[in-house]
């Protein structure tokens, strides 16, 4: 399913109110979005599924604001990124959030974490911006420009996150 198809389904939903047209979009993007959350939560499947569901519901409600200038996947990852950090802020209330605490909070054991224990342990040691940038660019295959749009930061900054993250990961996984 190409970007043109994505746009076709989006128009079906927004113009004709056809709820079922959202189904192909969910089916197409459920795997990358759930995997993104799975890696951000260090393998917490239940939490990542909850966050993924919230992402798709928000995307559905905000679909009219999708203008098609960026690809649908970039737009969806942007929502996912916001959902993840909103959920952290919500849990911590109005206090300043330390993302190291978040890493510890989300570090859980399950099937996925057992399989990817080394990777999760290494990812947990990165700064959250570095981790997100690495996951978006290397795991999800977004370009640097797309990832900078998702993280709403300048391209140069994104590249520095990727570079720093790569260096740290390479040392940690040696």
């Amino acid at each position, binding site marked *: 399913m190409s970007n043109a198809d994505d746009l076709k389904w989006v128009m079906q939903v927004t113009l004709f109110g056809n709820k079922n047209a959202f189904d192909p979009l969910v089916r197409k993007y459920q795997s990358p979005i*759930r995997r993104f959350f*799975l890696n951000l939560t260090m393998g917490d499947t239940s939490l990542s*599924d909850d966050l993924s569901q919230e992402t798709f519901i928000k995307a559905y*409600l*905000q679909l009219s*604001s999708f*203008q098609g200038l960026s690809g649908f996947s970039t737009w969806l990852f*942007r929502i996912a990124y916001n959902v993840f950090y909103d959920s952290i802020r919500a849990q911590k209330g109005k206090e300043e959030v330390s993302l190291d605490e978040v890493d510890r909070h989300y570090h859980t054991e399950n099937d996925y974490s057992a399989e990817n224990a080394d990777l999760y342990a290494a990812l947990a040691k990165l700064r959250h911006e570095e981790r997100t940038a690495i996951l978006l660019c290397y795991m999800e295959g977004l370009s640097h420009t797309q990832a900078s749009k998702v993280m709403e930061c300048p391209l140069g900054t994104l590249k520095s996150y990727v570079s720093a993250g790569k260096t740290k990961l390479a*040392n940690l996984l040696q």
Partner: protein
Amino acid sequence: MNDRQLKQLLKQHKQEIRDNGFSSKVMHHLPDRQPVPVLVWIFATIGTLLFIVISGIQRTTDMIILMMEKAPWWTLPVVSTAMVSIFLVGFFFHERKTSVSLILK
């Protein structure tokens, strides 16, 4: 570990997540959307019909030709350059400023 090996390693850990009823669950939880109001469709239809009835395409073409005949020779290049410039400036400004057009809060 070099860059290529790191890419390879992350690629190995990239797993396809099976749907296992996730999509159905999401679809089940979607709230109802308000479709585009019927009035919008009614007025859009009336507007289109009127445009056809009064030979809108012909009239518009004639008007453009008339304007071009009366206007000085430099009008076309100047106007078209200005329009393209405005579009490009607007496009790049939008891309830079909003990145992904989205209001979540």
